């Protein structure tokens, strides 16, 4: 088997002296091996793919070649010489001479060289005569030099002239300067791309060289599904509540009566939150068909006349207001239902409850507010709970969320007293920001339900969206929630680890 082009090239390269200058020009090598340059370039590339066998540096070389017209001149002589030889000693009528091939160029060049003379007054019209006896075909000689590879010996002027006459072409050739590589060897061994079952079966992998991997490139992304970032945070918050022993409350009713949403929470019927302005009321079903009669009577009394140690709000409480259906404005309505259910069990048992679900507000929308969002709520009911207990449990809860620096501000909530807004120090913003709301449920809320007087209920709430936006640095809530979500953001979202 005759040696391959690559092997021939390597053998040739072997003979070049070592050192930084030692090497081969691909053009010269191709000429020496009698190969087409492209074939040699193919061999260079295949050797490069083997790794460090050779080093090849690209170079651009300029070369002169004859054009088709130049080849003709080389064969037949330049047009001016040909015209000169066509003119006999008695001369030639100009009109006849111009019919000869190439006569236009030949005439002007021969005239310029003063080889011919034109007699305009000759009988029978203008006539051409030889002006010298012999001529040298300089153009043909020059072209022959180029053809023989000595184009460089021509002067710049000569070359420019020939180029202008379109006899000579300047050709740029991409070539390689080839040197021995660090793993130089004259034997060509093909490297395997990857391990195959056959190699494992035959054990051939033991002897085979393998092509190096490019570890700086990225891998192929797996085809997979993704969980939504906000709901990942929801899962973590559920996890936190479960770790703390909290039981999940049912919240699967977006539609709520004003009674459970407001009245049961001791929120008076003239409260601004009960305005059309802030709350989505329902057209259909506009009213709740069923309210708990006995409990409702106690709620009515505590609003309008007071009781349980309270002065009440002293206004005319209307059942029509309580019946009005709405989309719940907070999940505290669900907490009220859960506490009412607890009170009706008879013997009181301490509970810890939580919920995370959607709530709705008919508010003006902006980059951080939507008409619906998720509320996170925690409730503890036990005998003898204090404000200190509320702060203690909040400290534990928020530490699990990755927020440990807390302080508490007195606030007002219609259904809690004392009430506290929860602030945390934001390292990025360098200020205290509100992260939640909390308080102790009012007796006017708990006692009509039938809970024992000794029982205190502490509770807190926060939105799911706000900590999520802060955690992931999202400025526009629409990129996170709703159909305008950026799916790429969902695809790229990392694990949710709130405490790190």
């Amino acid at each position, binding site marked *: 088997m005759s040696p391959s082009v690559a092997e021939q090239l390597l053998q040739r390269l072997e003979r070049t002296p070592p050192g930084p200058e030692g090497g081969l020009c691909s053009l010269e090598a191709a000429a020496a091996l009698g190969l087409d340059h492209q074939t040699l370039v193919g061999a260079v590339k295949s050797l490069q793919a083997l790794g460090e066998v050779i080093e090849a540096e690209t170079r651009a070389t300029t070369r002169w070649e004859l054009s088709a017209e130049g080849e003709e001149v080389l064969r037949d002589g330049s047009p001016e010489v040909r015209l000169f030889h066509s003119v006999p000693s008695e001369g030639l009528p100009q009109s006849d001479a111009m019919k000869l091939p190439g006569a236009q160029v030949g005439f002007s060049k021969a005239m310029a060289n003063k080889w011919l003379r034109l007699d305009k007054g000759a009988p029978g019209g203008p006539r051409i005569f030889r002006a010298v006896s012999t001529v040298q075909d300089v153009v043909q000689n020059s072209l022959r030099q180029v053809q023989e590879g000595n184009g460089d010996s021509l002067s710049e002027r000569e070359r420019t002239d020939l180029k202008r006459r379109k006899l000579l072409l300047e050709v740029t050739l991409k070539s390689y300067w080839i040197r021995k590589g660090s793993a130089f060897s004259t034997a060509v061994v093909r490297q395997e791309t990857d391990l195959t079952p056959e190699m494992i079966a035959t054990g051939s992998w033991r002897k085979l060289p393998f092509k190096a991997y490019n570890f700086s490139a990225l891998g192929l992304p797996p085809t997979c599904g993704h*969980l939504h970032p906000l709901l990942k945070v929801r899962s973590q918050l559920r996890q936190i509540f479960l770790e703390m022993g909290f039981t*999940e409350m049912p919240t699967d009713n977006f539609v709520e009566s004003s009674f459970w949403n407001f009245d049961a929470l001791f929120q008076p019927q003239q409260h601004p939150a009960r305005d059309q302005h802030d709350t989505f009321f329902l057209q259909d079903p506009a009213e709740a068909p069923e309210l708990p009669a006995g409990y409702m009577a106690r709620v009515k009394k505590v609003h309008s006349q007071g009781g349980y140690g309270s002065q009440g709000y002293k206004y005319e409480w209307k059942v029509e207001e309580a019946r009005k259906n709405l989309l719940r404005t907070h999940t505290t309505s669900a907490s009220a239902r859960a506490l009412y259910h607890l009170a009706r069990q008879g013997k009181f048992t301490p509970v810890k409850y939580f919920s995370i679900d959607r709530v709705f507000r008919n508010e003006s929308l902006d980059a951080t507010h939507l008409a619906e969002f998720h509320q996170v709520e925690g409730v503890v009911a036990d005998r003898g709970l204090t404000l200190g207990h509320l702060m203690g449990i909040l400290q534990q809860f928020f530490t699990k969320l990755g927020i440990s620096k807390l302080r508490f501000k007195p606030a007002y909530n219609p259904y809690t007293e004392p009430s506290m807004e929860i602030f945390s120090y934001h390292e990025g913003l360098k200020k205290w920001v509100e992260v939640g709301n909390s308080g102790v449920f009012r007796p006017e809320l708990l006692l009509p339900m039938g809970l024992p007087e000794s029982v205190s209920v502490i509770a807190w709430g926060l939105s799911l969206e706000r900590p999520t936006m802060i955690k992931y640095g999202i400025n526009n809530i629409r990129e996170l929630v709703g159909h305008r979500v950026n*799916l790429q953001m969902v695809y790229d979202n990392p694990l949710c680890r709130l405490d790190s």
Partner: protein
Amino acid sequence: MPTVSVKRELLFEALGRRYTDEEFNDLCFEFGLELDEVTSEKDIISKEKGEGKAEGASEAVLYKIDVPANRYDLLCLEGLVRGLQVFKERINLPRYEKIIPAEGEGQKLIITAETVKIRPHAVAAVLRNITFTKERYDSFIDLQEKLHQNICRRRALVAIGTHDLDTISGPFTFTAKAPSEIKFKPLNQSQEYTASQIMDLYRTDSHLRHYLHLIENKPRYPVIFDSNGVVLSMPPIINGDHSKISLKTRNVFIECTGTDMTKAKIVLDIIVAMFSEYCEKQFTVEAVEVIYPNGKTHIYPELAYRKEKVKPELINKKLGISETPSSLAKLLTRMCLSSHIPENGNNIEIEIPPTRADVIHACDIVEDAAIAYGYNNIQMVIPKTYTIANQLPLNKLTELLRLDLAAAGFTEALTFALCSTEDIADKLGMDISATNAVHIANPKTAEFQVARTTLLPGLLKTIAANRKMPLPLKLFEISDIVVKDLTKDVGARNYRHLCAIYYNKSPGFEIIHGLLDRVMQLLEVPPNEENGYTIKATEGSAFFPGRCAEIFARGQSVGKLGVLHPDVITKFELTMPCSALEINIEPFV
């Protein structure tokens, strides 16, 4: 939460010391206020109307302070300063005194029977020998506006009128007349108008037009006259120009009319308590006799002080502190609740002043003790409440299914529960009446007309918003839909749905079908007729004919799957074929 703007210089002058913004912010935080913004009139105007308009406006620093919605006694500079000075023990809370004039010398307000149907309540008082300055006057007007916007519920419950008593002469009559019979020159107008003309005049007024609806459709409008027939006011819309107060006014007649007696009394108490500070005899108010249609009379303002007794242990127990009774009494006194321990007594005796109408229960007193003690000084304790956690079964199933749907290569979407009727009906080729949807009465835009009855539109809209993403798009959502249900106490209920969608150059029914098979496998429902699941050809308006099947599980229809109808695809502004699956997962809990 109401916001009160006060000039920093005036505030510090009244507080008798200066604070840095940060120090004042900390004081606010401790007291339950919030220093919302440090600004100036010039800043506000240039923010709202552009820099050009702000030229020449005052650059004096303004503090915008958020006040809790139930603390009407902190809605003006006078009240804020009084509250903070008492809190810091620099002054004692003044005692507000009602002076009842000698028989025949006091002012009278007669309420006629005509008011019953429109605005039945009225109370009144007089501030004698008051001295206004520009700042005091502005604060007086501003407080009325703050009260109107908050406790008065935009004048629906109570409307306040203040008058220069020296321009009018009692007794005054509060009555209701047909709009054509009321004629007077309204405040700051140059001519007289009838009541009907006044309504037209203010229809375009940026401020007053919001109150017109309160009386507009009534046959009679409320009106207050003096003994000469001069109109004092037409509540709750506008006062008369005749009796308007000015910086020179020395005696102010204040009337509060409304539909809520309790709130009218509170509002009057607040105004007189705040501004009696500037009367010659500080903190005194001259009472007015109100005569009811039934002939009964009552003296206002009430300015009632209420006594409460609270056990010191209760406060300590509710807060988790252990203070002595006298120290607790001192804490409460700092919150404008003058308290003491009577000799031989165990309880703290607390006097609730007329300015603290928010204190209606012992728990309110407990909170004030906590504020004065300092919330952040209370020792944190972890409750010993021992409980075992439980997940709600429906949510537990949802969480598990979410993970496995993502593992099956589908990406989770989170779409809105509210949408337009078009989304759940027209766009899916259905009539809205067939959806059994819950309708919202007061949506601000079409996006909030109904609660969704299906998750499909939300997922289709999610794809439409992400058309530039590489295909295929595979999405799912497990969330609640809402339908009317008269067997429920509120007449409606949620159902937990699972919806998945496949969007690509080919419909990929087999992919969605495969996902159904996988979901059923996860739920341990085998593919058979008896106790498992089957799918049967059906028609659905959202699906391409012949490419829709109903899903039955354990003999019950749970949903549908199929290739979406090209009309549905087009209506959601999509261009590729699409298959979808939607089931109710509640039978599998």
